[in-house]
């Protein structure tokens, strides 16, 4: 039992150490080499386009189910489904929008990034980058990291919009809440700090997904089986870490009144 815990701890520490070294290398090459702008644009388009439909769909139905559950519960307690718009919007903007978007992007684009870099690792293409005057950090990791940092917050904003729209559909057509009332509830109690709360989370989740997925890709060993293991490992690690980090971020940001 103790041996297992020891091995698990050792594995995690080495993973965290490796990822930290990669981030250090990212900072070094950001300062010492030209930014691969073309790669960044390509990756932003790929990550953004690939993940847009699935994040929109997820958020639309999350907004709908929030409105349905929230509206019915409030209706049972107070007699009328009041403040459905407020409930949906707060839940989405502060919590579910950033969390669900990051989880979906990790599963869709993050997995693709790990599989791509992992395949390059096991076929010596990463070594080939070193021999041709560049390196994996500069050519692969930095553009992908920048692309995640850009696209995760943008997709989160779209995700929030789709979620609020989903809530609107249920509130208006299933719960008989007037459209104007729903929209007034959406904006009535919303402050800049609520947007900042969600935005900061999405930015940090973007960094987390990029770091985990790129590191898992670069550290892939052992042929096709290794690529499969890394990809699964990257997605599972991202999902667990997003949910754990979300709690601590909420606690910290709330303490700072954000």
């Amino acid at each position, binding site marked *: 039992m103790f041996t297992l815990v020891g091995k698990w701890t050792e594995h995690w520490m080495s993973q965290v150490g490796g990822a930290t070294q990669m981030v250090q290398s990212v900072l070094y090459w950001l300062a010492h080499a030209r930014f691969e702008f073309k790669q960044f644009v390509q990756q932003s388009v790929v990550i953004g386009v690939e993940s847009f439909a699935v994040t929109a769909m997820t958020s639309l139905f999350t907004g709908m189910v929030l409105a349905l559950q929230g509206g019915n519960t409030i209706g049972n307690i107070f007699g009328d489904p009041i403040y459905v718009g407020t409930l949906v919007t707060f839940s989405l903007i502060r919590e579910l929008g950033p969390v669900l978007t990051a989880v979906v992007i990790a599963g869709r684009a993050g997995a693709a990034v790990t599989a791509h870099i992992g395949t390059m690792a096991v076929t010596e*293409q990463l070594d*080939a980058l070193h021999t041709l*005057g560049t390196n994996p950090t500069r050519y692969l990791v930095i553009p992908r990291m920048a692309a995640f940092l850009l696209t995760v917050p943008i997709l989160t904003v779209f995700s929030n919009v789709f979620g609020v729209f989903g809530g609107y559909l249920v509130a208006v057509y299933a719960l008989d809440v007037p459209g104007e009332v729903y929209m007034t509830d959406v904006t009535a109690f919303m402050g800049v700090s609520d947007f900042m709360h969600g935005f900061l989370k999405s930015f940090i989740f973007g960094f987390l997904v990029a770091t985990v997925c790129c590191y898992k890709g670069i550290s892939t060993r052992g042929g096709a089986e290794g690529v499969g293991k890394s990809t699964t490992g990257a997605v599972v690690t991202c999902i667990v870490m997003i949910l754990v980090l979300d709690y601590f971020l909420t606690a910290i940001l709330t303490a700072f009144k954000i």
Partner: protein
Amino acid sequence: MIEIKHLKKTFGEREVLRDVNLTIPDGKVTTILGGSGTGKSTLIKCMMRLQNATSGQILVNGRDITKINDPIRLAVIRRHFGYLFQEGALFDSMTVGENVAFGLEYLTAIPKEDYPKIVKEKLAMVGLQPEVADLNPSELSGGMRKRVSLARVLAVSPKCILYDEPTTGLDPIMSDIISDLILEMKHKIGVTSVVITHDMRSAFKISDYIAFLYEGRIMLHGTPDEFRKTDNPYVRQFVDGSSHGPIQMKLRD
């Protein structure tokens, strides 16, 4: 000239290179022979600093490259070398032409307009038609992949090319074509070549010098003629490709 002195490389407890001493003269082909898993690829990866030696020295024109840790200075040192990977290591997401031109952007100051001309030139050097430039690596045969990979190396004009098993997995005719290409590079552009191979026919054809790596040390270093005439039982067994001899006896112990 490249001098390897007392080079040692370990992976955890496993000692792959114990005490390698080897001199590689400029403009010549030096072949490193040895059985599978004897550390031949590890040796040339240490020379390229794709792997770090545990101890010892690799002197390139008198300068010890094992002591360089600054990533930018390391990149400068790597410019000295070209590396032909065993499976080619072509970038799957790019066309053949983009693969061949890849190093030009990072290792030379050549304007981008000249890339197509250079790609055509280098593909011709390795006996490939210009139309190949538009193909994807997945559309190439094993021999073509190796030739494209060689064209990618040649595009950046390295002083020394490290070939990792260039004829492995190829039919005898294609192996001979690749051997001819290695010789052609030596004669045409005077490049220093370090070749790792199991292919004795190719080794005798291309080499100016041969080194036999066994149990982490260079057991014999000499000309192809010396290798043909040697009575060292280990080398004899390897050269003759015999299953009987001290190497197998050692494995059975």
